């Protein structure tokens, strides 16, 4: 197999997709997380400020999902096809909530009646919670493996099989992770009493995350041994969980010191490290078959041709610096506390 800088092309593309998913999780993560706290904020003005903190960026953040999904489709079409058709119900629910969330954001501010705003606040918050949760559920199913048989065909149950105990755990872990992340983002964007309230919420969010994460980790180690095999066989990889734990521990430390910018950085890093952990646990498998390992989908049997991957690498190499340039430019433009003005939601 052809290689580039010592790695084969499917591995390179695995890194690209992983990078895009990490970017997506960090970006839409704070935005879902902020939405999940919405009902905890009681005052109309607080809710407006919280909504406007994500106002200029939520649309753009969701584009990362389109790009990440596109990259998966492009590089690993077999994985894309099998994963999406096997997990039909959670993906359809995800679509439902992502549309509901957009509707809520747009509808909320359009009428002054309190019942109107409360209605859309509830929709917005529940959609945000469900989106974060469903992402975790999908991840849990991928980590655990699903019933793939011959010809990459899914042979499991079609309705609620995706809601298994492990998927629920990863669902809650993802939700809590995003909530802590979102609370820190909101802290960067708010002042005064709302800020004070959010510092209290952040503490709850972090406790929620620590508990969910601990339970999920224990369950993984005990019941899903295949996920820790790589680490047992190659002890040097322990650096990754170690860094992950340090990064996680650093978030409350920095929050305590009121260094919220750094806390946000480390909470973003935490998300990235957790995904690196997932990637190492899986690699080179993408989707494990619970029927027989011979039906596993891995980066080799799922990949597009080397030629196709090479073309895409060129495109990514040209495009990424451009994307980074204007993403940073946009975030710089909107840096700082939210001031409600005529263009606000």
């Amino acid at each position, binding site marked *: 197999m052809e290689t580039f800088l010592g790695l084969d092309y499917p591995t390179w593309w695995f890194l690209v997709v992983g990078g895009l998913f990490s970017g997506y999780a960090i970006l839409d993560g704070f935005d879902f997380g902020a939405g999940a706290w919405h009902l905890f904020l009681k005052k109309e003005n607080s809710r407006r400020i919280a909504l406007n903190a994500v106002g200029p960026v939520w649309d753009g953040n969701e584009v990362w999902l389109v790009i990440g*999904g596109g990259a998966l489709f492009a590089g690993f079409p077999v994985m894309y096809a099998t994963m999406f058709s096997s997990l039909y119900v959670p993906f359809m629910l995800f679509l439902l909530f992502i549309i509901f969330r957009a509707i809520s954001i747009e509808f909320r501010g359009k009428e002054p009646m309190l019942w109107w705003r409360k209605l859309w606040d509830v929709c917005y918050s529940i959609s945000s919670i469900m989106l974060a949760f469903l992402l975790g559920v999908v991840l849990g199913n991928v980590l655990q493996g699903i019933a793939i048989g011959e010809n990459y065909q899914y042979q499991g149950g079609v309705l609620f099989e995706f809601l298994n105990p492990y998927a629920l755990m990863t669902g809650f872990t993802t939700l809590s992770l995003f909530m802590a992340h979102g609370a820190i983002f909101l802290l960067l964007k708010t002042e005064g009493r709302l800020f004070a309230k959010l510092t209290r919420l952040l503490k709850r969010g972090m406790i929620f995350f620590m508990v969910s994460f601990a339970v999920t980790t224990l369950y993984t180690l005990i019941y899903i041994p295949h996920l820790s095999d790589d680490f047992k066989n190659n002890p040097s990889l322990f650096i990754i969980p170690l860094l992950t734990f340090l990064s996680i521990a650093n978030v409350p430390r920095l929050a305590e010191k009121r260094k919220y910018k750094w806390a946000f950085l480390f909470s973003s890093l935490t998300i990235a490290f957790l995904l690196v952990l997932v990637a190492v646990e899986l690699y080179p498998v993408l989707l494990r078959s619970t029927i027989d390992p011979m039906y596993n989908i891995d980066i080799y049997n799922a990949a597009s041709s080397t030629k196709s991957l090479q073309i895409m690498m060129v495109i990514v190499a040209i*495009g990424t610096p451009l994307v980074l340039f204007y993403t940073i430019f946009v975030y710089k433009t909107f840096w700082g506390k939210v001031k409600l003005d005529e263009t606000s939601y």
Partner: protein
Amino acid sequence: MFPFLLLKDKTLSMETEILARIQFAFTVAFHYIYPPLSIGIGLLLVIFESIYIRTKNETYHKLARFWTKIFALTFGIGVVTGIVMEFEFGTNWAVYSRYVGDVFGSALAAEGIFAFALESGFLGILLFGWNRVKPWVHLVSTIGVFLGSMFSAIWIVVANSWQQTPAGFHIVGEGMDARAEITDFWAMVFNPSSVDRLTHVWLGAFLAGAFLVLSVHAYYLIKGKYVEVSKKAFKIALVVATVFSLGQLFTGHQSADGVAENQPAKLAALEGHFEASAPADMYILGWVDKENQEVSGIKVPGGLSFLLDYDFDAPVTGLNAFPEDERPSQINAVFQFYHIMVAIGMALIFLTLFASFLWWRGKLFDKKWLLWIFVFAVFLPQIANQVGWFAAEMGRQPWVVYGLLRTNEAFSQAVSDNQIMFSLILFFLVYALLFALFIYLLHKKIKHGPYEESESDDTPFGGTLTHMIN
């Protein structure tokens, strides 16, 4: 082509296929209301803002800001309904995704990196950056968003055109592992139909946007509101609409030529031409009787032959030249959709030329009835865009990738018809709500108008409340 894929239970596979097709058709038709509007309004935003920067005339600033709000609306709905489309490739068309992924991959990667990222990156500045960046930086952002939307049209039309006229690939593997792999990137990008179809799509999008601008400002003119602003906007949009209505004649003709060359079965269906090889008529109006292989209606004898070969007697390949299972089954539908599109195209040319003529005579805004026509003409390009795609996609049947992969072999085998029924009902409900939202917000923004009047604080998002508190 893939007998191994045929399910034992034929009825189940039929239902699953039909439901998957209905769901895709419904969601993509709904989606396609919005991206053309974003592209078209985007073009006008660039024009308005450029004039503002050159002339410093506040009117154009107001126009740009007003239409930015409507752009935000169409863009937002375009993004969420677009995510649905991408997911559906995987959820409902898994076999298709495995088959085309290698070829589509590079087009999709390019779309993501060059188009979506550009659009979404600059969108925040376009919408919320008016007071945060210098005017020229804002203009650059507007252009960035507009170009992004143009680029995304490129890649998605390239991908679709590859399904119509595959090129730059070879088939690797057999049975379930068979798939198209890319051999030549540029041959894939410039497959025989890409350029013709892309220009046709772009112009259709410009018209969708221009006619929305014409409609709204015609309405203001009738009501005697925002008159000066509206006259300016109307004239600019009229120029855009006239130029591109005429342009559609050429791009449409190019497309039809291409279809004749590359997809003869589709062309034959467009005009209901059955005889295997005979001079073909062109219908202005008609009805296809598939059983008796007859078309009744008003026709130009030999018209299609003439359009293709400049000879009324030139033979054109008809549907009977193809085996029954290699031609579209819904011939009358394809015929009707195509003819509605052509009729609307002609109507738009007539309407815009007539209005331009009145403008030249200095009487553009004198005729109230003409303004009323423009108010309702907003539906015409929308309908033309929709039926044009219906004709293109139904005319491609029974293939999902022309000549290579059949639609009835391309859907997800792992998904049951019950699941699709569930998601289809879900989409009906959610899209009904989404469409209600769109109409409601559009109405609200139009009612509010482009001026920032002193008693209202013109907060597009939730300003009423601040106003009440104050």
